[in-house]
């Protein structure tokens, strides 16, 4: 049993089996399978409309599924009412009850199951202290700032000590700086409570930094599941590769020819076997590129000086790729240069399917 | 169906006889004409007066509270009581408010509700008096909601007050005006109590809008069948008008 699982009391194991969701003729989810370990901080990542929020809501019981099963700690809860699943949720809009004080908001779930007043009092103060809003208990949600409202919603969720937390893009309504700070706090909170958490976001940086594992959603399907480092290092398809990373991975059309790589009109001999000849998509991360005397020809299009990092936009045959470096590159806009990359920094994807082509390690 | 309570033995299904009879009934056509005039003039007056009042009051922020109270009073009164008020205290020859004023101004005394020529005008005045505040309140709300920045931009673009009104204000409050027109038209078509209390449809038939004609036919002359037919025609007209208006509204909204 992992440490996290032990902290959570081994509760909150999630299993989704073959979840399909249809709206009339439109299929939102095409058979989603997922396993989440107790105590995990698990992110559902994907662009808008990819099905991640739908999956979350089906897990919560707020939406019925068309096919498939939902299991919590081994029990089949597919048809169980949301209130009976012992699950807490923080909505994107927080959904705080505007006519009640912060105290009453947090107390609500406990009062609904007839918890005695002194226990309610203790639990509410406890939860409020954990998210540091214990000084705001008499106020109404309308009198709180965005960040405070979010913490109030969190307190309402943790006060019941549920077996599962569901968070639906909880940070998207906060400004950039607050988002970064709150991210860290959320993670620490989750670790201290040890509750299994499922977190929906479209911000890949967010998911990569705070989650234990990530499931990448695309168009109603899960295309990759794994630890953030794995997804970063070995994206399973060109689409996933293009979604992860800031700036995202550069993708160029290329061809494998007689064991070498032909891209943008030049041949780059490779020391590793690249697999069969044929059209591919070449993927290289911006941080892995560098300006070199030989390599792929490119013209400097724009230099973005971000202070301690510089991003150079390069035009390769009409397509713009990005290079990222911590050193100030000695180039000017409009200049013709060459870019090169290390052999182990390349990713190859089949041109037609977009799937990763496995290349044996050097 | 033909139910003539004064001659109940003639009961039976009369088919479309009633409607055919209507076509050749001059009183019906007269009534229809009156309905048209009544509806059109009250609605137009309400919009024009309401708009003018709203524009006026907009400039005087401190007067708005008083105007609001003055506007609420006519609206909450029962139309039948309003009709009675006007009939007795306002429009009576000699002692009514209006007559006092006209006599003081040297315009003589008139029998506002008893004179066939003046009755329709009087009745239109009553309805307009009661319901203009509704138009006023709705248009005022719409005007108050306009952001001042649009007008500032127009001022910078050297638009005169009239131009600002015509090209910016009016189009922006058009949705509110359209709503007012639709709702007031519907109410005008079904207005009953005030006219009934003020004139009963008279003198003669000079204020007998379709509503009242149907009522009189049914309950005074006890010709329920024909009365019902008249009511159905009014119903059909109302539905048709409302349908057309909602269509126009939707198209205007899309535009």
């Amino acid at each position, binding site marked *: 049993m992992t440490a996290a699982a032990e902290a959570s009391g081994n509760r909150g194991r999630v299993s989704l089996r073959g979840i399909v969701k249809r709206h009339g003729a439109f299929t939102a989810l095409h058979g989603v399978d997922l396993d989440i370990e107790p105590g995990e901080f698990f992110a559902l990542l994907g662009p808008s409309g990819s099905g991640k929020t739908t999956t979350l809501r089906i897990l919560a019981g707020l939406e019925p599924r068309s096919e498939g099963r939902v299991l919590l700690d081994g029990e089949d809860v597919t048809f169980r009412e949301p209130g009976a699943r012992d699950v807490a949720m923080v909505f994107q809009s927080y959904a705080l009850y505007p006519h009640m004080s912060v105290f009453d908001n947090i107390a609500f779930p406990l009062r609904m199951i007839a918890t005695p007043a002194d226990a309610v009092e203790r639990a509410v103060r406890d939860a409020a202290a954990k998210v540091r809003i214990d000084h705001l208990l008499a106020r109404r949600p309308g009198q709180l700032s965005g960040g405070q409202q979010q913490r109030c919603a969190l307190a309402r969720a943790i006060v019941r000590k549920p077996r599962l937390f569901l968070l639906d893009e909880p940070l998207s309504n906060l400004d950039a700086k607050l988002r970064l700070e709150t991210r860290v706090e959320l993670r620490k909170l989750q670790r201290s409570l040890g509750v299994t958490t499922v977190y929906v976001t479209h911000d890949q940086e967010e998911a990569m930094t705070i989650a234990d594992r990530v499931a990448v959603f695309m168009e109603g399907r899960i295309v990759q599941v794994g630890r953030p480092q794995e997804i970063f290092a070995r994206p399973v398809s060109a689409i996933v590769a293009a979604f992860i990373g800031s700036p995202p991975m550069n993708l160029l059309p290329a061809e494998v020819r007689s064991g070498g790589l032909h891209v943008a009109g030049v041949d780059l001999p490779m020391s590793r076997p690249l697999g069969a000849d044929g059209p591919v998509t070449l993927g290289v991360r911006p941080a892995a590129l560098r300006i070199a005397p030989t390599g792929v020809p490119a013209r400097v299009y724009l230099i973005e000086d971000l202070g301690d990092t510089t991003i150079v936009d390069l035009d390769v045959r009409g397509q713009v790729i990005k290079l990222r470096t911590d050193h100030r590159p000695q180039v000017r806009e409009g200049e013709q240069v060459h870019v090169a990359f290390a052999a182990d920094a390349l990713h190859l994807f089949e041109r037609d399917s977009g799937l990763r082509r496995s290349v044996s390690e050097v | 169906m033909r139910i003539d309570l004064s001659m109940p033995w003639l009961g039976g299904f009369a088919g479309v006889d009633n409607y055919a009879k209507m076509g050749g009934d001059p009183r019906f056509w007269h009534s229809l004409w009156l309905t048209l005039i009544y509806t059109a003039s009250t609605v137009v007056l309400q919009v024009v007066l309401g708009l003018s009042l709203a524009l006026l009051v907009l400039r005087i922020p401190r007067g708005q509270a008083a105007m609001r109270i003055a506007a609420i009073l006519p609206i909450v009164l029962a139309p*039948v009581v309003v009709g009675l008020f006007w009939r007795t205290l306002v429009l009576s020859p000699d002692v009514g408010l209006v007559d006092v004023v006209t006599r003081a101004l040297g315009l003589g005394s008139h029998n506002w509700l008893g004179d066939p020529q003046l009755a329709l005008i009087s009745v239109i005045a009553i309805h307009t008096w009661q319901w203009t505040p509704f138009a006023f309140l709705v248009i005022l709300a719409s005007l108050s909601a306009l952001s001042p920045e649009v007008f500032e931009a127009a001022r910078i673009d050297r638009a005169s007050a009239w131009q600002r009104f015509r090209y910016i204000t009016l189009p922006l409050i058009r949705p509110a005006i359209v709503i007012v027109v639709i709702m007031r038209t519907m109410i005008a078509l079904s207005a009953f109590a005030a006219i009934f209390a003020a004139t009963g449809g008279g003198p003669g038939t000079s204020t007998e809008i379709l509503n009242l004609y149907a009522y009189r036919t049914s309950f005074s002359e006890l010709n329920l069948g024909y009365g019902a037919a008249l009511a159905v025609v009014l119903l059909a007209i109302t539905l048709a008008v409302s349908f057309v208006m909602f269509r126009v509204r939707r198209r205007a909204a899309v535009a």
Partner: protein
Amino acid sequence: MTARRLRTLVLIGLAALLLAVWAFPVLWALLTSFKTERDVLAYPPTVIFEPTLRNYRDVLFGSASILPNLVSSTIVAGASTLLTLVFAIPAAYALARLDLPAKRASGFYVLATQMLPPVGLIIPYYLVLQKIGGLDTYGGLIAIYLTFSLPFAIWLMVSYFEDIPREMEEAALLDRAGRLRALWYVILPQVRGGIAVTTIFVFLNAWNEFLFAVVLGGNRVRPVTVAMFNFISVEQTLWAKLAAGAMLAMAPVIVLGLLAQRHIVKGLTVGAVKGGGRT
């Protein structure tokens, strides 16, 4: 005097004039109700006179007292308002939350029932009530009042319910509240304003209703609106008494109007906007 100030004065003058036009009739009636009949007929009309409460006394305790009519109105308006709220609120909630294909059509339909001229409806109503012996009964009249109050109340309340995001109920459900408790503890407190507006308008319409009352009522069920109408023929030119009677008859709605000014204005404008927006 600057041109600007002159203009403002003119505007104020105009506004005052129009204010007078709208407020005056009611104030004049109020004044008249305290006059003796002789003072009423005096010309030029007197503003300073010796006030008397005689008219009010006659109207309340005299032979043609309107006290039973006030009671009648209270019963009819009060009961229909109460019943309307009891049925309309859950119905509107259901309509707002369930995704029924008929929803869009029902919006227009409801509006249409409000716009239908009552004259068209009283004849069938009369005949039906006559058949079942419901004429001149409270039950009969209240039931008929419900036919126009309910759609109106439902239509108003639906838009208020729709303004509350669904996530409110979802949060409450997850907090183990259950549908009914979610409605009671979370949703209803948030539509309090809407309920107030709806109550006011339903009551106003019921209290002021004339046509249905006069045709479908009778000797036992006679609201003040009918009583006032009969006044004119019975009391001939006893206008001071008429004024007093009218003031009493309209007292509840005038008081309601003055107290709930803001709600009424909000209701009118919101109703107008939403009514337009829905079809």
